[in-house]
């Protein structure tokens, strides 16, 4: 049992529950619940977006990858980061101008509500639940290790706290939990990177030189080493990471929590800055750990393996630079990170159920705000229970595989249709539905046939699909299906939908008629 870590984590929980109570008193309307009343500033929202991206997976996973392979770890970091400028240039402001609570608002803006909302909600729920499972499994393992509590209790604790934040505090609590955690994580990693640089006399050359001197791969850790050796795989992975981010429902929802397009723009600017800064720190942490953790026998077990597995590198480094107190802090931050991310995911899933399915499809827009919020709370509870059950069922699944699956699916199901609905006049309801389904089906089938599943999980000899990332092919399939089913759609409804594009285009460009912030 690590009592410092447990103490610090309890402090975080008590504080965030206080925030949740404060938020609950301010959450009355549907707009409060889904988008924190649309009143966050660009800086606050930028921190929250950065918080969503710098998850435990990237903090522990990427530093571990750098420790193991050196430069290759950086390739992942850059793929995630490079997506943000593109999101800013292409979709951030248009999303804010067109939508209100969910990205389905945008896709269904000029299309038939029922089929488009149902497919978008289906896409949102698929992505949110899979991502939740990946986070839950990671959380359970991590907490088991850091705090010495069993996997079952760890998963249940995460599930219960997540439901608490979301049902009572809505988006306001979810966002502030994320902001608090982002500040904690950024300060913690800044301190770690500073101490590492201090160790090497503030010379990165000295740091890289000592890392190369003690690493088994020598100076090869300073160059790309085969992670992206196949050009098709490289581009496919790049596409998946870049546009997968732009298809994650809990990220897209963040564009509706600011008052207007200008604040949406600012939030991406700040988010890109924070994410970039974080990854620069990770280079120092990863390479510093090669020397400061890798050469220290205390962090290895009898067989020479890192205690707790490869993902514990950053945690060991915390102990090396700041002693047990700082180790406790970083452990608590890692736990907090998972909580903040799962809360956002649960909220995006719940809003797909309550806003898209219940309010817009079942009740055809006639539900009162209170009814909508009530359904949302029930949905959060159900999602929480499902996440716990699935987390227990998938305990032994490989998390890297699950997260890869989520990004590839998000890039294929949500992004192409969202993009076309904003940029292409010709998109019709039939095309949008066909595009989503084609993206989903092709992404899942190609993943199953890829080496990751067909060989590693199902233990066949040879993969039927040679590439490990399907994004290049499944995104193309989605775009192609959306295009083909739209241009061949000669119905009267389709020509009406094309006719409504101009009004949508004017609103997306100028913000005339856009939903504003709630007045309090």
């Amino acid at each position, binding site marked *: 049992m690590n009592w410092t870590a447990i103490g610090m984590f309890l402090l975080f929980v008590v504080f965030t529950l206080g925030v949740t109570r404060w938020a609950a008193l301010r959450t009355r309307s549907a707009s409060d619940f889904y988008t924190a009343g649309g009143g966050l500033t660009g800086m606050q929202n930028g921190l929250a977006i950065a918080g969503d991206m710098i998850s435990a997976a990237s903090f522990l996973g990427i530093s571990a990858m750098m420790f193991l392979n050196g430069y290759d770890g950086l390739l992942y970091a850059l793929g995630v980061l490079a997506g943000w*400028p593109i999101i800013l240039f292409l979709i951030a402001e248009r999303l804010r101008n067109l939508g209100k609570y969910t990205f389905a608002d945008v896709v269904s803006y000029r299309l038939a509500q029922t089929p488009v909302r149902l497919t978008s909600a289906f896409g949102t729920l698929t992505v949110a639940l899979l991502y939740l499972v990946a986070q839950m499994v990671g959380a359970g393992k991590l907490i088991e290790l850091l705090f010495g509590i069993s996997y079952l209790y760890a998963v249940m604790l995460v599930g219960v706290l997540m439901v608490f934040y979301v049902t009572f505090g809505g988006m306001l609590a979810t966002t502030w939990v994320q902001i608090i955690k982002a500040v904690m994580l950024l300060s913690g990693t800044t301190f770690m990177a500073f101490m590492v640089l201090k160790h090497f006399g503030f010379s990165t*050359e000295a740091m890289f030189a000592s890392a190369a001197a003690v690493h088994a791969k020598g100076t090869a850790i*300073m160059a790309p*080493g085969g992670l992206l050796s196949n050009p098709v795989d490289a581009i496919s992975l790049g596409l998946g990471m870049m546009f997968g981010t732009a298809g994650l429902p809990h990220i897209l929802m963040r564009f509706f929590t600011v008052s207007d397009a200008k604040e949406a723009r600012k939030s991406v600017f700040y988010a890109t800055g924070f994410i970039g800064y974080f990854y620069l720190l990770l280079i120092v942490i990863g390479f510093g750990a090669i020397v400061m953790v890798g050469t220290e026998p205390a962090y290895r077990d009898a067989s020479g393996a890192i205690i707790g597995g490869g993902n514990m590198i950053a945690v060991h480094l915390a102990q090396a630079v700041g002693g047990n107190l700082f180790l406790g802090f970083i452990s608590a931050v890692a736990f907090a990170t998972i909580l903040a991310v799962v809360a956002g995911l649960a909220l995006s899933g719940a809003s797909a159920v309550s806003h898209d399915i219940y309010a817009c499809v079942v009740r055809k827009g006639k539900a009162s705000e209170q009814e909508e919020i009530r359904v949302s709370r029930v949905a959060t509870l159900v999602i929480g229970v499902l996440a716990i059950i699935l987390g227990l069922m998938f305990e032994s699944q490989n998390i890297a595989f699950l997260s890869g699956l989520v990004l590839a699916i998000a890039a294929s199901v949500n992004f192409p249709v969202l993009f076309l609905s904003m940029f292409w006049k010709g998109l019709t309801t039939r095309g949008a539905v066909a595009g989503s389904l084609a993206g989903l089906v092709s992404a899942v089938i190609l993943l199953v046939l890829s080496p990751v599943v067909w060989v590693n999980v199902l233990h066949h000899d040879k993969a039927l699909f040679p590439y490990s990332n399907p994004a290049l092919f499944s995104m193309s399939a989605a775009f192609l299906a959306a295009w083909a089913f739209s241009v061949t759609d000669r119905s009267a409804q389709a020509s009406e939908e094309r006719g409504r594009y101009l*009004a949508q285009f004017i609103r997306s*460009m100028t913000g005339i008629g856009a939903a504003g912030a709630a007045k309090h």
Partner: protein
Amino acid sequence: MTPSHIESISNHPDFQQLVRRKRRLNGSLTAAMLVIYYGFVLLVAFSPSTLGQSLSGGVTSVGMLVGVLIVLLSFALTGIYVYRANNVLDPLNDKVKQECAQ
């Protein structure tokens, strides 16, 4: 928005200028980012040794500098966009909104 209102906005010269400017800014910055990132990915795929070269005789490689530069360039491009949008596009957008108010 009524059909006649839509018509009048879409034919308004300021609106057309706004659309043209937005497209130019968004298009050129998107292209720049894609070239930077996929240029890097292709370099990784086809010529990893270029990135592995020593930067100035030491251990620090060219690739490390390129990685840091990509981070800084991503941030710089979003900065350029925010600056241009705040100072050029927003005033024009406000003008369109004012002139086309019903």
